[in-house]
């Protein structure tokens, strides 16, 4: 974490992009324009977060095999863009992409740290929960990740990347927080649905409640970068937002349009939030007893969750 983080807030830019389906080169060129714009902003953002599947679109089905890239290549392409337009000015970049490694395909997000000398890949998170129901079909084409990592962002300190449905399972951000995360960053692609709501689609309200709940339960920042635009009739719900550790929505974008969302984070708000609502500390104390419960399905011999 930056040494002056108590005095100067961390500057974040969430890029709510609307990529054209499968048009990787075109979307990369569009990202160059976005980076050029970001490089002219004063003050310069210190962290840029892009959504899930930011340069390809989300619903690719079998085309995921044609659009996926190795993490090294993807990181190189993204960091080169920044170097081209911003020179050696340091920045951190998080972005979702379809990853291939040794013939296996993943829905992944990368975290890059660029300083004056080098570009480092600090984390590649592979989506754990691949929605495969209703309109979703991820597991047909992709493999699951198997770990929640916490890595040390030079800007934010201990940070965890989760992708979309990962954040819907309360145990996942809980594990991230237990492993030390002070910030949870969620690239996402969330098709909107539910018109019974009050002034917005229900799925947007649900996401907001969910992310605020994560922030408040664990006393951490939550940054959410959502894909925007329609994909074959399925409208992505944008709504990129930054949430403080006390659950306050610092900023939130509209659902439909591409945009850049800026936020300033006072990182010491984490200590204040956790002191005022010490749920994470309480959980640390009780968790060993909870996990040793012999009624939990994985401790009852070889039975599955349904007891079979």
């Amino acid at each position: 974490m930056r040494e002056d983080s108590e005095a100067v807030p961390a500057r974040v830019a969430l890029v709510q992009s609307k990529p054209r389906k499968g048009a990787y080169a075109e979307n990369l060129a569009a990202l160059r324009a976005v980076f050029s714009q970001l490089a002219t902003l004063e003050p310069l953002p210190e962290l840029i977060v892009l959504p899930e599947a930011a340069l390809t679109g989300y619903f690719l089905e079998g085309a995921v095999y044609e659009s996926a890239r190795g993490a090294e290549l993807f990181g190189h392409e993204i960091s080169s863009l920044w170097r081209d337009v911003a020179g050696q000015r340091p920045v951190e970049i998080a972005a979702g992409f379809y990853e291939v490694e040794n013939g296996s395909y993943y829905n992944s997000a990368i975290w890059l740290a660029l300083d004056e000398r080098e570009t480092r890949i600090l984390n590649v998170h592979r989506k754990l929960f691949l929605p495969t129901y209703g309109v979703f079909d991820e597991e047909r084409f992709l493999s699951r990740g198997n770990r929640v990592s916490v890595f040390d962002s030079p800007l934010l300190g201990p940070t965890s990347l989760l992708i979309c449905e990962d954040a819907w399972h309360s145990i996942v951000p809980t594990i991230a927080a237990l492993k030390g995360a002070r910030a949870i960053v969620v690239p996402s692609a969330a098709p909107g649905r539910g018109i019974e709501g009050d002034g917005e689609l229900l799925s947007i309200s649900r996401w907001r409640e969910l992310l605020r709940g994560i922030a408040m339960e664990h006393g951490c920042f939550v940054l959410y970068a959502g894909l925007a635009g329609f994909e074959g009739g399925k409208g992505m719900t944008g709504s990129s937002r930054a949430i403080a550790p006390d659950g306050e929505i610092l900023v939130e974008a509209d659902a439909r349009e591409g945009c850049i969302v800026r936020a300033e984070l006072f990182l010491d708000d984490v200590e204040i939030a956790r002191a005022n609502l010490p749920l994470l500390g309480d959980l640390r104390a009780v968790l060993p007893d909870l996990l040793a419960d012999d009624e939990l399905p994985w401790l009852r011999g070889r039975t599955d969750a349904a007891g079979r």
Partner: protein
Amino acid sequence: MLPVVDPPKRDPYAPPKIDPAVAAGWLVGFLRDECLGRRGVENAVVGLSGGVDSAVTAYLCVRALGPRNVHLVRMPYRTSSPASLHDAQLVIDALGAVGRTVDITAAVDGYLQFEPEADARRRGNVMARTRMLVLFDQSAKLAALPIGTGNKTERLLGYFTWHADDTPPINPLGDLFKTQVWELARYLGVPSAIVDKAPSADLEANQTDEGDLGIRYARADAILSSMLLGYRDEQLRARGFDGAEVALVRRRVEGTHWKRHLPTTAMLTNTAINEFYLRPVDY
């Protein structure tokens, strides 16, 4: 070029939020529970100064207990502003509650004639304690519970007379900052002449709370609401608060912790009350 969405301009001095309808409903429930439920007392007695705190308290009491069960006592001293007396009458008239005026001049001067050198602060404390004497006696006479009117800001800044303003057994406003009391007053329909005037202890001519405190309530409330969450002074300054005002507020809060406690009792045994022998207030 993509449009840039920036967060709303952050005003560190934005007043602490309140939903006055929610707060009013909750406080009416509190008053009913404390008076009718816990104590079986149907009447309340409130000292009415003409200021917003006692007016809001009176409005809440009338909602909770009905106008005929709320006794509003005006207690002027000879130097009190006639406008205060008038404003207090506005509340009595608006609520249809039981009004009474007890002039405390003779009682206060009966003592102060022996202390002619007493300064304004001492004289003010004598007046405040005399008013509380009257209020508790009226309480005994009317079988009515005295209701406190102190707000959170003055409690935190120590801007009250110990064992006077803070003495009634229950207080509906003690966890509301002054700016929140103003919001609540507007919601309850307290006359604007009371809500909009400069708050004053009315112990001297042209006295105002904000003049005494050296800071506007709106600014003090914003600082206090962050300070109480645990932010240190340097963190408050980093968030845009004025350093001198932060220091002033900190000094007042930290110099008055004792005023927010019962008297310090020397502990000598294993059964010291409130140290070893502990029972909840409503047990």
